[in-house]
C-alpha cells in the first residue's frame, strides 16, 4: 500500500510540473526516478520512451504505465497513470470553469515564454545525458543521425516518415548489427 502511495505521489508531482508534453518531462523523470529513487535506469527510460512513441496513447502516460508495472504490476500501472493526470485534470477543470481565456492573459504568455526557454535547456540536457549511455560507436551514431535528420527535416521530405517506422527499422538494424556478435555478452553498463 505504501509503495502504491509513493508511486501515486511521485507521478502526481511529475504531472504537476511537466510543461510541454512527454519529452519535456524526461529530464524530470531522470532526476526523480533514476537519480533520486532508483526505480529505473537511464537505458530503461530510453527504451520506454521508444516503445511509448510507437504504441497508442500519450507518451508520458505510456512511460508512467511502464514504470508503474515495473514497480507494482497492474495496480502500480493504474496508480502511476492516474497520478500523472491528477493535477492536470484539476487545473484544466478550473480553467474550463472559470478562466476560459487563461491562455490570452499577458502574464501567462510571458511566463510561458520564459518556461519554454527552460524546457529547451532541459531537453538538451536530457539528450546529452542519455546520449552517453546509448550512442556507443559509429553504428549507433549513424542510427541517431539518420533518425534525427529524418525527423527534423520531415517537413521538407516528399513523404513524412512516421516515428513508428523509424523506431522499428532501428530495432531491426540493432538485430543485424549486434544480434550475432554480442549474443551472450550483454555487458553494457546501464
Amino acid at each position, binding site marked *: 500500500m505504501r509503495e502504491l502511495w509513493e508511486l501515486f505521489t511521485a507521478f502526481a508531482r511529475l*504531472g504537476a510540473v*511537466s*510543461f510541454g*508534453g512527454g519529452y*519535456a518531462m524526461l529530464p524530470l523523470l531522470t532526476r526523480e526516478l533514476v537519480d533520486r529513487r532508483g526505480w529505473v535506469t537511464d*537505458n530503461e527510460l530510453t*527504451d520506454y520512451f*521508444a516503445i511509448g*512513441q*510507437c*504504441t*497508442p*496513447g*500519450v507518451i508520458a*502516460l*505510456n512511460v508512467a*504505465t511502464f514504470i508503474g*508495472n515495473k514497480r507494482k504490476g*497492474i495496480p502500480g500501472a*493504474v496508480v502511476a497513470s492516474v497520478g500523472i493526470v491528477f*493535477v*492536470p*485534470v484539476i*487545473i*484544466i*477543470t478550473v480553467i*474550463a*470553469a472559470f478562466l476560459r481565456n*487563461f*491562455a490570452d492573459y*499577458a502574464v501567462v504568455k*510571458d*511566463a*510561458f515564454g*520564459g518556461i*519554454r*526557454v*527552460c524546457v*529547451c535547456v532541459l*531537453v538538451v540536457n*536530457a539528450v546529452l545525458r542519455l*546520449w552517453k549511455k*546509448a550512442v556507443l560507436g559509429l553504428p*549507433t*551514431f549513424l*542510427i*541517431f543521425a*539518420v*533518425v*534525427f535528420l529524418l*525527423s*527534423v527535416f520531415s517537413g521538407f521530405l516528399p513523404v513524412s516518415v512516421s516515428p513508428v517506422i523509424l*523506431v522499428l*527499422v*532501428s530495432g531491426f538494424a*540493432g*538485430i543485424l*548489427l*549486434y*544480434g550475432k556478435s554480442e549474443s551472450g555478452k550483454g555487458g553494457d553498463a546501464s
Partner: protein
Amino acid sequence: MILLRLYYEFIKVGLFSVGGGLATLPFLYDLSDRTSWFTHADIANMIAIAESTPGPIGVNMATYAGFTTAGVPGAILATMGLITPAVIIISIIFRILNYFMGNPYVEAAFKGLRPASIALIAAAGISVIKVTLVDLPAWQASGNLSDLVIWPAVLLGVLLFLGQKLFPKIHPVLFIAASAIVGILFHFGS
C-alpha cells in the same frame, strides 16, 4: 448516457493516436464533427491552454472536452477513457518484454532502438527551440542575420544551461519557476 459515450469516445482517441499529444488532434476534430460536444474553435482554444499548463497535451484536451460537455464527471471520465487503452496495451507489452528479457536478439534490437529514441527526443527539442529561440520571419523580413535568433531568450537559455551544469543539485523545477519569473519581468510572451 453522455458520460459513457464520453468514456467510449476518448478510449478511441487513446487507442488510435500514436506518437504523443498532438497526434490526438485529428481525432478531436473528427469527434467535434460527429458529436458537436465542442467546436473547432474550442479545439484551438484547448491547444493554447494545453500549452500553457503542465501535463500531457492529450490529457489536457480530454479533460477540457469532457468538462465542457458534462462538467466534472465528464472531465474525469473522458480522461479515464484516454488512459484506459494505454494502461492495458503497455501492461501487455511490459509482460511480453519481461518474458524476452535476456534474449540476445531483443537486447540487440534495443541497442539499435535507443539511439533512435534519443534522436526523436532531440528532434522534438529542436521543434521547441525553433519556436522559442529562433525568429525565422523576422530574419526573412530584414535579411539581417542577427534577427534570426531571439537574443533575450538565448541569453536566458545559456544562463539556465550554465546554472544546471554548475549547480546540478538544484531541482529543475526551481529553474522552471525562475524562468517563468524572468519571462514575466522581461515580457517574453510578446
